[in-house]
């Protein structure tokens, strides 16, 4: 592999890893704070992508689609938490698995009813449709850099929310000691709703951002879901920074795996996870 293609693969790895982080961070927060295993989280990614497709077709611009899509995703998440997930907190994992598995079927079929089963493309916004020359022959698409930049901005924002704000303090406290938060008179139900809606919006945004690259297709959520599980397992449940590191590890393992070990391409990520399980079954970044 020469340097230019190495550089391209590195940029691709970063972009893929950061995008996965958006999905996995919500998943791990919902696991860590509410103790809920949510199989339907991948569906939010799928829903985001389809929202981007539908709204971009209607408005003619992915920008507009994202601007409209984020509040829609937030509202959708809050509604879902209110109607369904708030009933799951005291149930065992098996019932959570069951309900969220049922939800996947519902979401996929609704998608099929409303939008159909075809594969769709979404246009890259015109101002980002160009590419940057890395060498005389190799170019790198600007849009992928934009995705990475947006994800980095969001990761930094998430860091500030969690480390510096009152909401973040509650999230951190809830992460460690639920009863203490309640004893402080903080409305834990509100935190749960906000965190859940945030998780949905992040996953949906990831789907919207990815839609021009990956195109929009049925069942696109399930692969992302399982990869996000792998990320959460590697990073440790409830750890957002573990999820960030693990997402980058997965991004690099997957991207370089496809180049260096094409015959094992789908498996590399899982082999990495297997290695982590042998080494630290609680995840690399789980605090002792």
């Amino acid at each position, binding site marked *: 592999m020469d340097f230019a293609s190495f550089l391209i693969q590195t940029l691709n790895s970063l972009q893929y890893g950061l995008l996965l982080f958006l999905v996995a961070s919500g998943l791990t927060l919902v696991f860590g704070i509410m103790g809920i295993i949510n199989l339907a989280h991948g569906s939010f990614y799928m829903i985001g992508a389809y929202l981007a497709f539908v709204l971009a077709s209607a408005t003619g611009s992915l920008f507009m689609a994202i601007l409209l899509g984020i509040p829609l995703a937030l509202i959708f998440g809050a509604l879902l938490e209110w109607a369904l997930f708030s009933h799951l907190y005291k149930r065992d994992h098996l019932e959570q*698995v069951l309900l969220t598995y049922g939800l996947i079927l519902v979401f996929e079929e609704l998608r099929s009813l409303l939008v159909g089963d075809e594969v769709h493309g979404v246009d890259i916004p015109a101002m980002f449709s160009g590419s940057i020359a890395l060498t005389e022959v190799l170019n790198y698409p600007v849009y992928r850099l934009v995705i990475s930049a947006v994800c980095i901005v969001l990761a930094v924002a998430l860091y500030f929310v969690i480390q510096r704000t009152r909401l973040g303090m509650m999230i951190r406290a809830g992460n460690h000691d639920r009863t203490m938060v309640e004893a402080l008179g903080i409305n834990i139900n509100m935190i749960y709703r906000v965190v859940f809606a945030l998780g949905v919006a992040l996953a949906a945004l990831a789907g919207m951002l990815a839609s021009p690259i990956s195109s929009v297709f049925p069942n696109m959520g399930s692969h992302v879901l399982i990869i996000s599980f792998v990320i959460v397992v590697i990073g440790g449940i409830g750890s957002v920074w573990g999820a960030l590191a693990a997402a980058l590890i997965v991004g690099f393992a997957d991207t370089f795996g496809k180049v260096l070990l094409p015959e094992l391409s*789908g498996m590399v990520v899982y082999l990495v996870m297997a290695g982590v399980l042998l080494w630290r079954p609680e995840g690399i970044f789980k605090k002792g």
Partner: protein
Amino acid sequence: MNAQLFLKLAAVAILACVPLTGESFYTELLAKTLVLAIFAMSLDLLVGFTGLVSFGHAAYFGVAAYAVAQLSPKYEAASLWVVLPASVGLSALVALVVGLFVLRTKGIYFIMVTLAFAQLAFFVFHDTPLGGGSDGIYLNVKPSAEIAGWVPFDLDNQTHLYYFILAMLIAVYAFLGRILQSPFGRVLVGIKSNEHRMQSMGYPTFWYKLAAFGLAGGLAGVAGFLYAVVFGFVTPELLSWHQSGNVLLMVILGGMGNLVGAIAGAFVFTGMQEVFATWSKHWQLIMGGVIVAAVLFLPGGLAAIPGRIKRSLQGGGSNE
């Protein structure tokens, strides 16, 4: 003869009569259901009796199915007495190896990790020469039951195959029932109830769980083997997480920790699938809706319904 045994014998008798009707569609549907019932029982050993919620059980089902297809020569029949033990053994072996990894985790982690390993197995068959890609492979000739020139039954014959599957179902049921009464089975149930206490009483619970995981994998392999023989082809979809989810659904529908329940769960599931599918091409929407509603409004699952009715008939007096 007690009532329970009588009911079981009656059920077997009814199942045994089905091929006599000559309705080949229903015989095949029922054969498929019986295969799924074996699959569900194997998972129940983990979920219902040992307390291990595996979301990747389809992997062991699929490994055995692929093993039959790969071990059979292209244009002649393989020996049943070789392929069956080989594919079941392979499934058990894969489960044991995966078990070494996944049993290091607990709770939510265990659910996710079993799912991830099943996905790994999916990609093995999807991406490598082992699996023949997303189209799968055909099993052109079904295994032959010939023993030194004598052919006791013929799996190419639908009726024979049906009875063979029914016999396997009964054998697996009896086998599991026996195991659960053994000291080993009691330890598994103890682990489900209170693993920590089992450890402090001197049980190396990891190894017991691993044995259960391997055993369940092998029995899932029995189902996978039969599935491949019934349908004559295998695809990576057999290992997909939907397959894992569906079998878990059957176990839960039937009320976990109850072998007859697991069989009933397979029947209810296939029945719902068939009925909903006649209503609409989007039958999964109804299925999903039913699942969501069941969890929300029926904590404890369908299996808890008889108990609820009983309690309300007794005037709600008991508070168990």
